[in-house]
């Protein structure tokens, strides 16, 4: 009974996050990250990875909206929770943020593998002999990274270089759902620092991913930070300067970068929704009647974007409208307006049939926006064709001249007096 009430209350709750910590020290070493998380989401539950009361799903319902796993080296989660449970959580629409490290354990590797991201073996690290931080006196695995994906909705406007120390990842380049949030530089590679390289490593150069994300088709998101340390207070407060870089050390951009990426992962940024799809003939009110070929029509749609947890007008400049009857006949850019109203006008093609107004917007970092409205397009009525064509004037002339002739003929035919026969009769009489 109590559980049912709890489940109902949870369903009504807005956003609930589970944070899985590796051990007691994590709460202190990552206190800034956790504090920042607490400002993004009011309802957070903290549990240790091996906690015997760790549950994700109860009575068929997910208990949380988001899960943050800060337990890279855990060998088995408590209470029999396995990697598959997190996959089911993703399938149900939940979002995951995960950190890995050079001591990555099997559960974390499995979760990543299921979403198409391969984390390198335990004991390997990302090594960059060109861009290691000047404070690295060991194996050059403390790396300064700045190859961010150009998607401000995920990484922020101009992200500063970040400090990274951890394990590398690779993804199939044909996988269109994986997003390369932060890549390694061209001189970096992933390998165990104390072993010679005898075969090709997992990835070299910009194919090596330091922070990888995936947006599933149900718009659930998962982000994997290859470095557990890059989220720690120590790295947040550090100064970075790559060995190969000029100039003075600058403050690490870890805090802003992590905050931006986590905002995206928890669906506080980058969600799109549409409403108020309207279409009508220019100068008329919207109606259900079919359009006619060569009509001028205007279409408008309101698109909103989630920014910092609030819905705001979307300001994209490359949203397109397609007018499709199996193949698109018209494809035009929608002009953004105030309040997120996107409008365009065009002329209906001169091919009749059943069409759809389609807005299919798919960009990196945004959820997939798809709107389809069906309309009919009819040909001309028999009364809508062109009339009084100059080429037809001869025909008009012939018809009307015949009518006119008939009218005049009626007079002549009825009232003609034959004056010559009278004359001849009169002449005959006179003789």
């Amino acid at each position, binding site marked *: 009974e109590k559980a049912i009430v709890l489940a109902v209350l949870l369903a009504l709750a807005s956003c609930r996050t589970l944070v899985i910590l590796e051990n007691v020290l994590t709460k202190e070493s990552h206190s800034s990250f956790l504090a920042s998380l607490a400002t993004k989401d009011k309802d957070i539950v903290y549990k240790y990875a091996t906690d015997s009361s760790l549950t994700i799903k109860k009575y068929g319902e997910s208990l949380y909206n988001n899960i943050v796993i800060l337990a890279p080296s855990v060998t088995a989660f408590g209470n029999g929770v396995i990697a598959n449970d997190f996959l089911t959580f993703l399938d149900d629409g939940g979002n995951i943020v995960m950190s890995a490290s050079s001591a990555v354990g099997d559960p974390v590797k499995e979760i990543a593998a299921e979403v198409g991201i391969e984390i390198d073996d335990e004991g390997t690290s990302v090594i960059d002999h060109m861009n290691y931080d000047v404070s690295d*006196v060991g194996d050059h695995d403390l790396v300064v990274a700045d190859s961010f994906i150009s998607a401000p909705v995920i990484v922020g406007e101009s992200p500063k270089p970040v400090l990274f120390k951890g394990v590398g990842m690779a993804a199939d380049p044909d996988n269109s759902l994986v997003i390369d949030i932060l890549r390694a530089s061209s001189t970096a590679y992933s390998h165990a620092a104390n072993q010679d390289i005898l075969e090709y490593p997992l990835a070299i150069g910009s194919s090596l991913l330091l922070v990888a994300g995936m947006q599933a088709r149900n718009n659930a998101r998962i982000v994997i930070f290859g470095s557990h340390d890059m989220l720690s207070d*120590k790295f947040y407060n550090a100064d970075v300067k790559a060995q190969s870089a000029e100039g003075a050390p600058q403050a690490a951009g870890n805090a802003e970068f992590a905050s931006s990426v986590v905002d995206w992962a928890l669906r506080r940024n980058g969600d799109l929704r549409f409403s108020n799809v309207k279409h009508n003939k220019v100068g008329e009110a919207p109606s259900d009647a079919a359009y006619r070929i060569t009509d001028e029509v205007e279409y408008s749609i309101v698109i909103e974007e989630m920014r910092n947890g609030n819905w705001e007008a979307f300001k994209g400049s490359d949203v397109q409208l397609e007018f499709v009857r199996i193949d698109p006949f018209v494809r035009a850019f929608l002009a953004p307006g105030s309040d997120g109203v996107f409008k365009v006008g065009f002329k209906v093609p001169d091919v009749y049939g059943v069409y759809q107004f389609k807005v299919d917007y798919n960009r*990196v970092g945004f959820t997939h926006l798809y709107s389809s409205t069906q309309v009919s397009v009819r040909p001309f009525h028999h009364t809508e064709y062109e009339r009084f*064509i100059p080429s037809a004037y001869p025909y008009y002339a012939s018809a009307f001249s015949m009518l006119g*002739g008939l009218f005049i003929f009626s007079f002549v035919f009825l009232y*003609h007096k034959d004056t010559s026969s009278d004359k001849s009769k009169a002449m005959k009489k006179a003789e």
Partner: protein
Amino acid sequence: GINAEYGDREKISSVFTLPIDSLKSAYQVTVARSILQLPLLDSTCDFVASNTQLALADLYFASHIAKIQGCQVDIAGIEDYLNSEIAGEEASMNSLFKAVTSLSNLEMTVDSSVAEKIAAKVKKEDTVMAYSLAYLASAVLPGDVPKDLVDSIEDVAHRADTIGNAMSFEGGLMETSMFLKGAAVLSQKAGKAALTDQMTQRFANYIVSNKDKSGKSNLFYTLVGLDALSSGSLVPTHLIVLDNSAVISESQRALKVSLVNPLGITVKDSTAKIVSAKGAAGQAIFAPGPMAGGDGVFEVSASGLARGVFSAELGFELPSGYLAPDNSVVKVKCVLPVELKNAAFKLIDVDDNRVITSSDLSGGMVQGKADLSTRLIFDFTLLDQSGEVTLHQVFVRFTNTKTKQNVFFIAQADLKKKYTVDLNFRSAAAKSFGSVAGEYTVDLVVGDATLPQAMVVDVATISLDVPDSKEPAADLSKQAKPEITHLFREPEKRPPQVISTVFTALVLLPGLVLLVVWAKLGANVSNMQLSLPTIGFHGGLLAIIASYINFFLGVNMFTTVKYLAGVAVVTFLCGQRLLSSIAAAKKAK
């Protein structure tokens, strides 16, 4: 401890400065500055004078500041107020502690019954914090320290969690620091160290790990903890601090070591020596023997440089009462540059078995052509001052000049440390290059932990020719697609206006002819008589024709038929009358 090299001291000092916005922050700033031996701020005393109320927390902060800085706290009735707080029935350990220490700081007398109260209260509350506060309070009371309390220190310490080589209480930094402070002052008063060496070392490791945090509170408690560890009563621990990042090279042959207490202050009257400094292969980099310098700052110069990572074991002689570091082995890395030598770059045509291009790279970058029947062989050695070496990262990198895609190959070294890259394009073109033809720049990327920086050597530019070359696939699904505007069907061509006009004229011509011939033949309408049927009939005909014209101009059939129905009847009747009257007229003739 606080590592001077990384600006720890500056970072932490910069936090404990103006502005002061509360008594608590004034307290933290003053205490921190006194621990760090920085000059105290003048404005603190004024702030205390104007902001202190007769409340326990305020007096606690104000009294501490007064003791350190020598301010006056001029509020009437402090002694009575504080003693009444102590005498209160439900006074918590926190209140007792604050009242006792405030009275002690202000050099006022404390009620003698308080020792029993503390003993009773701490047993009742039984938390780590309660014990810590009890230690701090008991240490400032006159008389001997209760034996039970001193014995409890080690028991309470066992409540801490040990993770790795660090020990901390569940309450975190504040709880651990306050415990250490309490244990230190009580140990000092009791005259014996209450914690074991191992415990002290582990607590120290934990406290030091917090020096990178941000926030005044965190840093304040870190300093409190470090101060407790350095006070000399809790068997102080020391940490080895390296000044030049433990990396030695041609230009920097000296290893500098500082022996400091947890607060970063060097240990006087100490000496250090190198016990051994050997690398993995057994070669020595520092000769065993005493290190130059003294009083906590030591230096030794490398006798001969050899690439690699060395473990230098250090030995220390410390004045009495000091605990040697738990880790006296220091990792020192020696970095040396390498040179590329004996390079041989060859492009071979496999089918003809002849060498197309061959170069030793002395003349700069090689220009070459390759197709599916080409084999690339690139040999070289890497030399440093001691001979051939093998390094961790030795890759050959192909970069497509147009798409900027990289393809890497690993160079493998044989037993004589000669590196070779052997590439057969027949298989590699599809497998590694994705069958993308084009121009590629080839360079050699050499990197290692023992190289000061990665080395990139430009080797060649190769034009790769692949039949059925694939364009690198561009993912269009995430971009805007090209615009489409519908091409409307052209209207059919019409004859020029002139032709229509001419034919219209031609069509109207017979009408003209009719009129002319009629005139010639003498057609007339002499027999017409104006009467009603006549008007009706002709008028009706005209109306019918008019309705045809109207229908043509755009009225629909229904209206027309309705109109015509009426008009037709009228016209018919009139016409009949007319014709019968004409026929009658004809008969009469």
